[in-house]
């Protein structure tokens, strides 16, 4: 009997998609992975609605209202939620804006930027409202596993995913744990 494949969803919140690129870096190992998991909502499938999933992978921290909404939906629908990469773990590069008032950031980009024509701060209702600070995901929902790195290498992701799927305790080697 063929075992049912585990459902996995992924998303990139306030991230750069670098962690997703690292996931694609699994290369030929993606074939092995595809035999064991089935992708649900993910930038790789372009499925928009999140179903009931076994595993959720979160890249990036939360910087706007939509990020918070997506993150809480992932927590509600995924049995195991994994934060992947520096931004999800501690806010990362996007959180460097926490050094400044949000108003100053917006004005610097949209009012005082070089070469702007008719400068104005975007306020279309379709654009998610920015939070006053960027936060790591564990400050919003409970996270089950953390995978550091900017991004974690494909080898690190592979070790982690293999151990997780086979039910082993996750144990990464020294060179697989990096904050940069």
């Amino acid at each position, binding site marked *: 009997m063929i075992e049912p494949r585990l459902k996995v969803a992924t998303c990139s919140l306030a991230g750069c998609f670098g962690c997703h690129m690292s996931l694609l870096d699994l290369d030929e190992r993606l074939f092995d992975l595809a035999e064991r998991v089935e992708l649900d909502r993910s930038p790789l499938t372009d499925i928009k609605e999140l179903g009931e999933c076994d595993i959720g992978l979160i890249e990036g921290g939360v910087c706007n209202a939509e990020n918070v909404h997506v993150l809480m939906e992932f927590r509600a629908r995924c049995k195991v939620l994994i*934060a992947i990469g*520096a931004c999800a*773990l*501690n*806010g*990362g*590069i996007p*959180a*460097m804006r*926490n*050094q400044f008032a949000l108003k100053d950031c917006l004005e610097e980009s949209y009012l005082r930027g070089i070469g702007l024509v008719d400068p104005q701060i975007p306020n279309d209702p379709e654009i998610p409202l920015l939070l006053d*600070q960027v*936060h*790591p995901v*564990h*400050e919003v929902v409970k*996270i089950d596993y*953390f*995978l*550091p790195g*900017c991004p974690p290498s494909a080898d690190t992701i592979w070790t982690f995913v293999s151990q997780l799927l086979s039910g082993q305790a996750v144990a990464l080697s*020294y*060179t697989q*744990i*990096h*904050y*940069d």
Partner: protein
Amino acid sequence: MSERPHFTLDGRRVPFQDGQTLMTAALDAGVYIPHLCFNPEFTPHGSCRVCLVEVNGRVQAACTTPAAAGLIVQSEIEELREIRRGILQMLFVEGNHVCPACEKSGACQLQAVAYYVGMLAPHYTHFYPRRPVDASHPEAVLDFNRCILCELCVRASRDVDGKNIFAVQGRGIQARLVVNTPSGQLGATPFSLHDKAAQVCPTGTILIKHRGYETPIGQRLYDRKPISVVGDVAQVSESRGGRRHD
């Protein structure tokens, strides 16, 4: 011939001489006890608490506890690893430690100790304090976001360089590293790259300008081997990727 006095560290006999602490005796015996504010060249400070060990059942800082014959010391036990991990996590959330954007990443003692104690994520709520960067000096930059208040630069500048350039101002959560001039700018001081204070920072707070990426990420001091094998960045010569002047 009488036997040298010794204590037991994780079941191993560690000999010591009069006046040594648990830390210095362990260091001489080649046994690593994680630490941040300790540097063998300076009077111990006992402030970071990363070197906590269990001495006859009591938790004490290894860098300030005098070695004594017959002590039973434990260091690599899960209970202490958990405390150390918690301390590292608190240090990370209290400042702004953005490793991907830091020139010191890979040769940073704070990061290396965090790897050593198995810290995967900072766990606590981030403070995101607003702290300045001082680039006024032609050869060095001070990024206060990364300061962990170990006071090694304070001690080095005062006790070795005789310049007294750095100080800690304020108390408790208000405590912060300052430059000891009316303007508070490093550029207004006689600070030089040849100073001891330029070599001792365990984080990326005191950075040397123009040399940030001479050694690529991936080939740095702690990129392949842990700090327990490589040693402190301040004790490793520059030619081997550390900060000690050759």
